[in-house]
């Protein structure tokens, strides 16, 4: 009761401020900048995704502004942290739309947080470019929702293709028990028949587990030709170490969720010989110079590493691509949402960090199988597989 009254007052004050702001701002500053919202899991268990995404978005906005902005208008990034919590993501999206009055939103970093905010973005009719991997985000296609992260469908296809080339028939799966692992496991099971691969055992591990030897011992009993681990750091690094300790000799495949130099650092010598699918970012310097993505990749890597003094991973690239795609769509749109949406949907041949994007009415992810390459870890670094 006490609270309600004071909140009413404070809201009244806020209301007055908002009204004042509109009177002052509508003619002057609103015309000069495009406000873009960012929602990332900057802290919490998925901070390895959200942190580089936030940094990449800030960096890209800075660069665009330095080059004169878009149609003479500067960009302004408003970024909120979800901590990976869907409720916080919903609050953040509403704050961005109603309070900050952004014209488009980039993020969130995770599949559950993305799925949570999609109904709000759809209802408000605001372009949303998600940075999460889950296929459910853009299938079925929702008019206002796009995404730049490669879907796990493509990653699984890349892994299975590589297995087929090596004549691997029986596999064991070890996936993390969160949205990423679950979606990956689903795809692995769905596509197995297509490649003539048999899953002899599928096990899971908790994201915070300290020891996965029981699961591995159980998989070993079935004598698979290879083991696939689908998860994000640090779990897969523990799995890698445990495989070395149990002296399991079959090849180990990891997912694109560990595609960062951090993984090699964590797993140490045990990481030798591991196969994984990754966006081209990790092997940018190994790519032939005729590769269309090479220039973008080298540029992004250099800019990120000099600005933040940390090694680059593919994750920040999702946000980097999203902002550049959005910037292209903004050109000539005058900030009208419907125009931005149409421009996004018609975007063709955008060369980004995660691949070459070709959006269409049926495909709001826009990436093809060439977005992934298979790499092997050798001598503590990546080796490109043909």
């Amino acid at each position: 009761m006490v609270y309600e009254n004071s909140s009413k007052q404070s809201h009244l004050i806020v209301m007055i401020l908002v009204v004042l702001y509109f009177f002052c701002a509508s003619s002057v500053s609103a015309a000069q900048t495009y406000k873009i919202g960012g929602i990332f899991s900057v802290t919490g268990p998925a901070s390895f995704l959200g942190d580089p995404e936030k940094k990449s978005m800030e960096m890209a906005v800075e660069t665009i502004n330095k080059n004169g902005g878009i149609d003479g208008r500067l960009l302004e990034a408003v970024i909120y942290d979800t901590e990976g919590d869907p409720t916080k993501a919903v609050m953040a999206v509403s704050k961005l739309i109603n309070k900050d009055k952004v014209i488009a939103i980039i993020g969130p970093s995770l599949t559950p947080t993305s799925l949570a905010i999609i109904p709000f973005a759809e209802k408000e009719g605001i372009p949303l470019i998600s940075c999460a991997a889950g296929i459910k985000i853009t299938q079925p296609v929702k008019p206002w929702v796009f995404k730049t992260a490669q879907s796990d469908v493509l990653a699984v296809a890349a892994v299975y293709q590589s297995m087929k080339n090596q004549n691997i028939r029986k596999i064991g799966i070890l996936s993390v028990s969160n949205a990423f692992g679950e979606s990956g496991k689903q795809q692995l099971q769905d596509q197995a028949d297509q490649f003539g691969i048999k899953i002899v055992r599928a096990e899971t591990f908790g994201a915070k587990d300290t020891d996965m030897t029981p699961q591995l011992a159980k998989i070993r009993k079935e004598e698979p030709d290879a083991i696939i681990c689908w998860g994000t750091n640090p779990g897969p690094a523990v799995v890698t170490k445990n495989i070395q300790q149990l002296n399991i000799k079959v090849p180990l495949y990891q997912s694109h969720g560990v595609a960062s130099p951090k993984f090699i650092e964590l797993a140490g010598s045990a990481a030798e010989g591991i196969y994984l699918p990754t966006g081209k970012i990790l092997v940018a310097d190994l790519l032939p110079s005729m590769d269309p993505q090479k220039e973008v990749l080298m540029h992004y890597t250099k800019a990120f590493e000099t600005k933040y003094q940390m090694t680059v991973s593919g994750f920040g690239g999702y946000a980097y691509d999203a902002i550049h795609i959005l910037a292209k769509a903004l050109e000539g749109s005058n900030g009208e949402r419907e125009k931005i949406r149409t421009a996004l949907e018609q975007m063709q041949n955008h060369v980004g960090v995660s691949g070459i994007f070709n959006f269409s009415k049926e495909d709001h992810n826009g990436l093809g199988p060439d977005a992934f390459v298979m790499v092997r870890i050798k001598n503590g670094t990546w080796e490109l597989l043909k």
Partner: protein
Amino acid sequence: MSSKLLRKTASYGIFWIAVAAAGMSIDNSYYLQVLTFIGIHSILALGLNMLMGYAGQISLGHAAFYGLGAYTTAIMTVHYDLSPWLALPCAICLVILVAFIVGLPTLKLSGYYLGMGTLGFGMIVHIIFREWTSVTGGASGYVGIPPLELGAFSFSSSRNYFYLVWCTVLISIVLCQRLIDSRIGRALRSIHDSEHASKAVGVNTRNLKLQVFMLSAALAGVAGFLYAHFVSFISPGTFDFIVSIRIVTMVVIGGMASIWGALLGASLLTLLPEWLHAFSDFEMIVYGLILMLVMIILPQGLTRGILDIYERSHKKYFK
């Protein structure tokens, strides 16, 4: 007596006017949404407050009931295509049933063992939400829960939902208040002070504790129902152990055994992260510090001090 009743009615009246005024004056749906979440959290805190503040029993697994309410309505409305208004009583009944089955053995425990028992139950339910993929949608969550509608009237706008949630809060408050003022309320407080003594004077402590546990679970189930139809997406992460702890924190920070305290605690814990955005990487440190400081300075909770004075003057007046 009548003047006491008058005051109570007046306080509800003021509360309702404040809610209505907030609903009418606030145009920005962001603020309405924040207030809606505060309302949902208040229902959770109110329920747990009945259990912790009045019956003196702790529950570290309340998010499980919150989740059960949400998942029941989600599955019934999406999978079986039933009306949400049919799903609501089903959700409440299911939650009460589960609370009965769990409470029967668990409430024999006391103190930290009760805490552990409820925590274990909460963890098991959370794992079921996460692993029973074919029914609950698994870790990625459950999408497409329909918005609430009553005939032609839709609750899909933030303002209408805000009214719906706060009406529910008001009903819950009246319900809890009436219970506290009744004979049951006095028996409950006697359990809180000494279980053995209340047993000795003929209070059936076991049944009473179980009933309060069921009531508090039912309120959590209603909160889950409201959450599911508001956000239209649910995932196991929203109902995990951390959330249970957060509900307990709301109750204790606001002040145990105080209805308005539950409201205040829920408001503070919902708003605090929104205010602390500016601290970015320091947010966790500041949040932790504020929690600690509030408890160190006001161990009775935020409202308790104020309410003590209020109730004392009340009593004097009454006598």
